[in-house]
């Protein structure tokens, strides 16, 4: 098979900083080519160069597509050639229908007037291709994220795609939806569509990719042909980080104390729908110095549980008891939760965890201003000292504490969120997907921080969709499904199989 795409000596600067350094990247026609690397390695930048988001002239180097040298001034130019990129943040319009979204900017029309019959007929054909059975009149906001991802692909197909680029397509999907999507990629490959897959999930990459290219610090490190032979994740990781990660999870000798925090008969209703119970009779307990995992598929109610505990930040008609250090406490709002020594590291740091336009200092101090002020006057000196100390303690890489959050990498942003909550001085820390979307190196650092907190005797509730992570760092695991806790596993008994078994059994029990 021939080479469909060749990017030669691509170099790109951002404000004098080299983001891509002489990158050479070659994709063979009809393959699935995975692009992996740590955050900031240059994957997205490279793909943005390819798709014309960074127009010709903003980078140096050449792009040869299907034997022709190409100059893309914008996304439209690259799409005309059949190169379509699907970004991590989906570009769908929630209040328009599936059909309208599929043909947006590419309408089935004559003289500017849309032919609705044709729109929906073609949309249905495309939906069949991607295996989506929904009616094309359904609004985007009413379908799940996994389905939306499929709509994006249908949209790409509508543009006569020859090279499909997917940037972290499964980052927000659960396992079933991820599997669906990956299978679809394999299907599309059969019909001759080449794809480039950017992903942090190495197991998926290994499963579907024919070739893997590894980027590090803006340069190509290695290109591996998979050819049916198994490639080990560890080898890829080694290339990605440029050093041997002996163990992906730091070792720790747990020192577990007495039961410290308990939730009893916890019930929560959907704030939009009074009849729908989201959390059903949940009982859980955490010991001092323990890292307690909560596992479960997306939508199993983990975040809802955490947020309802944290000052009723989610849900309605919440009933149940919270017992801390042997005493029952009432928590009606977030302030009270913080005052009772709770902290909640949110699932989505950008929309709910951080103030992106503010600096590190203001973000770290935000939930602890009481400590830093006297009669409402903030003590600047103390605030600076605290920020400097936590920046150092958590190894937040930045020019100073006055660095704006939006200019930090994902891993460093996450460290700021952790710094903020550690500074608040909690006894019970609930962490919701604390390592989502950050690179392997930063993950390791965050595990170390979590271990230290447990070492100090804090109780940690660790929520994650990644099973290896749950198994790697938790002392005990609750399995959640459909708003219930359906299993409790000690460290020794916990495995990917046993957790999945709990979920499957509970599904069978209810239906």
């Amino acid at each position, binding site marked *: 098979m021939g080479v469909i795409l060749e990017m030669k000596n691509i170099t790109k600067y951002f404000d004098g900083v080299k983001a891509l350094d002489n990158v050479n990247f070659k994709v063979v026609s009809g393959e699935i080519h995975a692009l992996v690397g740590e955050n900031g390695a240059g994957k997205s930048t490279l793909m943005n160069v390819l798709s014309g988001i960074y127009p010709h002239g903003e980078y140096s180097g050449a792009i040869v597509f299907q034997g022709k040298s190409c100059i893309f001034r914008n996304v439209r130019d690259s799409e005309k050639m059949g190169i379509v990129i699907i970004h991590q943040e989906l570009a769908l319009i929630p209040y328009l229908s599936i059909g309208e979204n599929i043909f947006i900017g590419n309408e089935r029309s004559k003289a500017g007037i849309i032919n609705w019959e044709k729109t929906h007929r073609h949309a249905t054909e495309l939906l069949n291709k991607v295996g989506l059975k929904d009616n094309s009149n359904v609004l985007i906001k009413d379908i799940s994220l996994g389905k939306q991802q499929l709509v994006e692909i249908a949209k790409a197909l509508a543009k006569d795609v020859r090279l499909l680029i997917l940037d972290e397509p499964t980052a927000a999907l659960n396992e079933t939806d991820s599997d669906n999507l990956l299978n679809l990629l394999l299907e599309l490959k059969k019909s001759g569509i080449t794809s480039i897959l950017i992903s942090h999930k190495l197991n998926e990459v290994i499963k579907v990719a024919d070739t893997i290219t590894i980027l590090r610090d803006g340069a190509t490190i290695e290109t591996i042909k998979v050819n049916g032979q198994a490639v080990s994740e560890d080898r890829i990781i080694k290339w990605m980080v440029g050093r041997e990660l002996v163990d992906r999870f730091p070792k720790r000798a747990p020192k577990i104390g007495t039961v410290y925090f308990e939730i009893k008969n916890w019930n929560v209703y959907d704030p939009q729908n009074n009849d729908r119970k989201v959390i059903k009779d949940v009982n859980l307990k955490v010991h001092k110095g323990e890292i307690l995992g909560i596992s479960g598929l997306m939508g199993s109610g983990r975040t809802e549980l955490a947020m309802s505990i*944290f000052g009723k930040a989610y849900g309605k008609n919440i009933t149940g008891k919270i017992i801390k250090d042997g005493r029952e406490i009432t928590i009606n709002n977030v302030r009270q939760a*913080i005052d009772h020594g709770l902290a909640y590291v949110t699932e989505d740091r950008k929309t709910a965890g951080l103030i992106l336009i*503010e600096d590190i200092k203001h973000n770290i101090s935000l939930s602890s201003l009481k400590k830093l002020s006297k009669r409402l006057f*903030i003590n*600047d000196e103390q605030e600076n000292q605290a920020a400097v100390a936590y920046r150092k303690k958590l190894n937040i890489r930045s020019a100073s504490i006055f660095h704006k959050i939006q200019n930090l990498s994902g891993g460093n942003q996450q460290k700021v969120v952790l710094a903020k909550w550690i500074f608040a001085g909690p006894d019970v820390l609930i962490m919701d997907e604390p390592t989502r979307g950050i690179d392997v190196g930063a993950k390791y650092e965050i595990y170390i921080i979590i271990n230290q907190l447990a070492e100090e005797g804090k109780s940690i509730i660790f929520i994650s969709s990644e099973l290896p992570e749950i198994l790697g760092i938790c002392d005990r695991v609750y399995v959640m499904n459909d708003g219930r806790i359906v299993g409790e596993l000690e460290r020794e008994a916990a495995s990917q199989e046993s957790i999945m078994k709990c979920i499957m059994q509970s599904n069978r029990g209810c239906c």
Partner: protein
Amino acid sequence: MGTTNVELPKAGFATYEAVKYALQNNIRQYAMLIALIFIMAFFQIATNGILLMPMNVTNLVLQNSYVLILAIGMTLCILTGGNIDLSVGSVCAFIAAIMGHLVINLKMDLIQALAISMLVGAIIGIWQGFWIAYVRIPAFIVTLAGMLLFRGLTNTMLKGLTLSPFPEAFQKISSGFLPELFPGLSWELASTPIMIGIIFSVILVLAQLKKRRDKVKNEAEITPISLFIIQLLLIICAINLFAYWLAAYKGIPMILLILGVLIVGYHFFTTKTVPGRYIYAMGGNEKAAKLSGIDTNKVFFFVYFNMALLSAVAGIAFASRTNSAFPLLGNNFELDAIAACFIGGASATGGIGTVIGAIIGALVMGVLNNGMSIMGIGSDWQMTIKGFVLCMAVAFDVISKSKAK
């Protein structure tokens, strides 16, 4: 995106580069100040030196006092998330009407009437704040309703007529001057403004030095010492020049004292206090603020409550200046105040903006008005030019921001 790991200059950066970097970094902060100076220089020449004559400088302050007061409150509203308050002009009018009714018609004691007016301002604040913060009706709509409501009430109270004149004591609020500190000195200049100017400069220098020391201690990038000294000198010059102008006329106007207290107070409030920080946090990301234990409803309520109070103050100041309460009083005040904030660098999505910026923005508008009036340009053209300036100022802000990325 791969663009997140932008390196920043570190210590040991070449001096030239450091100066350049500092300039770039500060250009937005000072851009409007520089623009203001240019506009002033332009009109100074175009009006043959009338603009900066001592009497006119004092006039400028008196003329614009109401916009300055409103712009302070409006900044807080905009900070919470680009929310504006359209009702301020009508509230000014309503308070002026009440004041007029109490003092002129009912011959009530001045202090008592002022207290009642402020109380009414507070009640208006509670009314609007409740709907905006707790029922979460968009501020735009609540204050649009308020704009109609209080204009209507004004007309009802005044029966469409003008109330005038106010007692002399009331007029003093905007036309009075602070007494001489050393009346014995037979000087050509008033001594009070000069003294205050010097005291103010000393305080400012000390504060800036402390800020710089803190930054050094916390490993932050700082402007090079040369630039820092130039900056300080410029500020000192500006303050003392202003003091000189005041001194050369009648001294410090009463209203300037009120304004000064409000500006310093609110600057301090927004930058150094917990509630002030909460306003920025809410505008930056309300969800994150909530999950950090901030009662954002309370913040929202306070901001609109405060706006109504300041509108009351502005209404009283304006009534005192025009020595009357009339149905059209305060017309378009809200637009002046909103424009001042945006010219002063506030973000239309919230979380960014400063009280000082809004003051500079209001002065830009004020100097434009005043300068053009002296030149004899009609009010129709004045409005056109102000509209153009607003658009350009915000365009500059948006473009410079997108370049920074």
